[in-house]
């Protein structure tokens, strides 16, 4: 039987040995539970007699968006200290002189962080069961949302890992990782909406501007939508995004998955390269 990578094994052991981990899971569930139960409470205040089943889809959307927001906070934060933390604890040099390659170290660090965030997502399953009480949501939708979380967590984790390898201090690395995650989560969405407004202004039936590159802009808007986690989550939940008429040959979730997985793998390879002696800075 293949043996688990020693760094992954050690990381999991260290993570689950402390009470901090249990408290973090409890806090996570408390925050998400507050959203769901708060939503149900407000609904009950308006209609004390019964819960309107047609609001169930809104409840599912609240739960899913709340989870996405929390994951966007937790995932880069967990990985942003993975390598820089080893550097600060002065354990990195010793680790790099073992038979483990830089790639194995980077990958196992990401895997241990991903294992924890996956546990967080799985721990919220009982909250999703509330949604199923009232119906209106297909299991495929729920599976789609969970698949979406896994893909999103992968890239966000890789962003944190790359920042952790590049920056020497965990504080700087964490800020940088959150910054990049914010640009990806919110920046791309705002830019898509902004470009769409510009497009509508310059490309309309009454005063069309001949020099306006409508086709190119539409492609950019579609691309930004396809890589924006909020737009993609909304689409999974049945809310249409900006209509551009552009297609990249894959369904919207395919574009998202391909971009996130490829970008994540590139960042991981880059991180492993940065860890190799050729790129490291060391002073006597």
């Amino acid at each position: 039987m293949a043996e688990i990578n020693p760094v992954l094994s050690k990381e999991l052991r260290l993570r689950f040995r402390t009470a901090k981990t249990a408290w973090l899971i409890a806090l996570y569930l408390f925050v998400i539970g507050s959203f769901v139960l708060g939503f149900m409470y407000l609904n009950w205040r308006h209609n004390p007699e019964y819960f309107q089943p047609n609001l169930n889809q809104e409840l599912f959307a609240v739960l899913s968006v709340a989870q996405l927001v929390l994951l966007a906070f937790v995932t880069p934060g967990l990985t942003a200290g993975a390598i820089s933390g080893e550097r600060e604890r002065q354990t990195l040099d010793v680790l790099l002189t073992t038979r483990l390659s830089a790639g194995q170290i980077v990958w196992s660090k990401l895997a241990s962080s991903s294992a924890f965030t996956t546990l967080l997502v799985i721990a919220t399953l009982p909250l999703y069961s509330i949604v199923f009480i009232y119906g209106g949501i297909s299991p495929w939708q729920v599976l789609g949302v969970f698949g979406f979380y896994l893909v999103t967590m992968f890239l966000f984790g890789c962003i944190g890992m790359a920042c952790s390898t590049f920056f020497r201090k965990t504080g700087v690395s964490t800020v940088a990782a959150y910054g990049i995650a914010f640009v990806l989560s919110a920046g791309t969405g705002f830019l898509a909406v902004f470009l769409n407004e510009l497009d509508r202004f310059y490309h309309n039936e009454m005063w069309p501007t001949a020099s306006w590159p409508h086709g190119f802009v539409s492609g950019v808007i579609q691309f930004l939508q396809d890589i924006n986690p909020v737009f993609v989550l909304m689409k999974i939940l049945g809310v249409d995004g900006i209509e551009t008429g552009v297609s990249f040959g894959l369904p919207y979730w395919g574009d998202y998955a391909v971009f996130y997985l490829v970008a994540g793998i590139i960042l991981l390879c880059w991180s492993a390269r940065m860890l190799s002696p050729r790129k490291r800075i060391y002073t006597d």
Partner: protein
Amino acid sequence: MIVFDGVSKSFGAVRALDNFSLEVKEGMVYGLIGPNGAGKTTAMSILATLQLPDSGAASVGGLDVVRKAGEVRGIIGYMPDFFGVYDGLRAGEYLEFFAAAYHIPAEKRTNLANALLELVNLPDKGDVYVDSLSRGMKQRLALARCLVHDPKALILDEPASGLDPRARAEMKEIIRHLKKLNKTVLISSHILPELAETCDEVAFMDNGRLVACGTVAEITAASRGARQVRVEVLERAEELAGYLKSRPGVTEMFVDGTAVQFFLAGERAEQAGLLQEIISAGWSVVGFGEIKRNLEEAFMAVTGEEVESFGGN
């Protein structure tokens, strides 16, 4: 076993190693001596495959540290000058983790960890969390960690730094034991008397260069190419000093009561000849002998530095 051949390494404008060459034979405990910034850590980190040399070559056991870095890691144990430990692990788990990182089969790891803890005199600490160990114990644990894969060569950067005298003595004892196990040990330290006691040979480094190397006896005697001699007479010491000034090979003389100290070029035969001359000239000689310099004085003599500027972190 360990070879540096004209290795140079710069960090920006700072030249950490400048055409540095050194050879350490198998089974030898070799001391690397130099002030802060001399290039010791850079030299060691190149051997540990953490740095690449700008020019020149370095090898361990015949394996080039650049081209065969993976194989080199398999035959060296590296202990950096500053290192941390995983506080959430127990001492036994810590060693087992590194054993796994060196691909030691799972079924052998527990016994190996226990044997290594025994070797570094921590036999009852296997279940103790690493963060509760004293500094000296952590140093010894780190040394045990270096040995998990039974390396041929050990590269120990300031292993005794920050330790109390008892812990330093224990560390010294372990290094002596490693020599008995035929390990090649390259060790750097600021505490020169300890290196003198532990090492077979030492090398002096300054500004990234090798200044001198050899056995401790050789290096303390030959650091200026002259031996320091003290002659004690019954009377007329000042007059003796005047007489000695005219003798060939005698330099840097001073009178200390009824004794005269000076440097004499040459070996023991020259000392015997001079003693005979002094007696023939009519002085009643009470004592005549060579003053053995310690490693620290020899280092100062070679590098021309003051004692105060050397040592300490």
